[in-house]
């Protein structure tokens, strides 16, 4: 049986998937992708060149999870890192709407349900991100947290 055994459409709140143990998934910020978003509302500019965003656009970084997360554990190394849960917040001049990790700070596994996390483009490449995934398709939760936090899509 493959991992994708949860029927599409059960919804992101399918409780048993949060009660059983999770599927391990580890990444670092070095593996984040560069995306271009509109400054006004955080919407993604499809096909834009991250190296040359338009005047009203900004390049940020994103890690997309292949399934909805059950928990995420963060371990910063030599650099401070701010973790954002919406694209618009990652554009903000201040980090007040972020998880602010000091150098060498390690969180406990935080029971966070999301499908993506975001960083400023200049984020250090050494943040360790260890997630426990459910088997629920990330499409069930795409942009849900983001729109709750203020993004337009």
């Amino acid at each position: 049986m493959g991992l994708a055994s949860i029927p599409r459409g059960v919804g992101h709140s399918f409780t048993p998937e949060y009660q059983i143990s999770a599927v391990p998934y580890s990444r670092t910020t070095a593996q984040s992708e560069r995306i271009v978003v509109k400054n006004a509302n955080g919407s993604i500019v499809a096909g834009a060149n991250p190296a040359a965003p338009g005047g009203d656009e900004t390049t940020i970084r994103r890690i997309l999870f292949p399934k909805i997360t059950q928990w995420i554990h963060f371990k910063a190394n030599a650099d401070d890192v701010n973790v954002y849960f919406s694209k618009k917040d990652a554009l903000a001049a201040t980090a007040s709407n972020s998880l602010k990790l000091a150098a060498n700070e390690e969180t406990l596994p935080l029971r966070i349900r999301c499908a993506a996390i975001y960083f400023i483009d200049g984020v250090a490449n050494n943040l360790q991100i260890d997630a426990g995934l459910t088997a629920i398709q990330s499409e069930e939760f795409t942009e849900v947290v983001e729109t709750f936090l203020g993004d337009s899509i």
Partner: protein
Amino acid sequence: MGLASIPRGVGHNFTPEYQISAIPYMRTSTINTLTDEGDNVRSFEFPKITQWLSFKADGAMTVYFCKEDAVAEANGLPVGTTASYPFNIRCTKLYFNNDTDGVRSLEKRSGLTVIQKEEFSNVVETFLEANN
């Protein structure tokens, strides 16, 4: 599917919302910029009922869960520069003593349910103040 999928009126004790993982909600603010509740008390309100809470401040300070305790500076949760454990705390509002902690910056790391905060407004406060 939007986030506000829980019908209004299910109640603050809708168990599945505390069994599944929570919506991340991170906010950092200086205490003296928060909502003025009078009597030198400031407050911070979450948009939904919390499932868990962790705190990290830029110095020693105290978090209260009702105004009366914040005024009296009693029965609070002390926090500091090391992030606290994520406590399974169900509430909608935090209170602070502005005289003592007004200049402090507090990072609130929280996981939210999707249950409307109106289902739980003033419930913790009423309980705590009745037991003072």
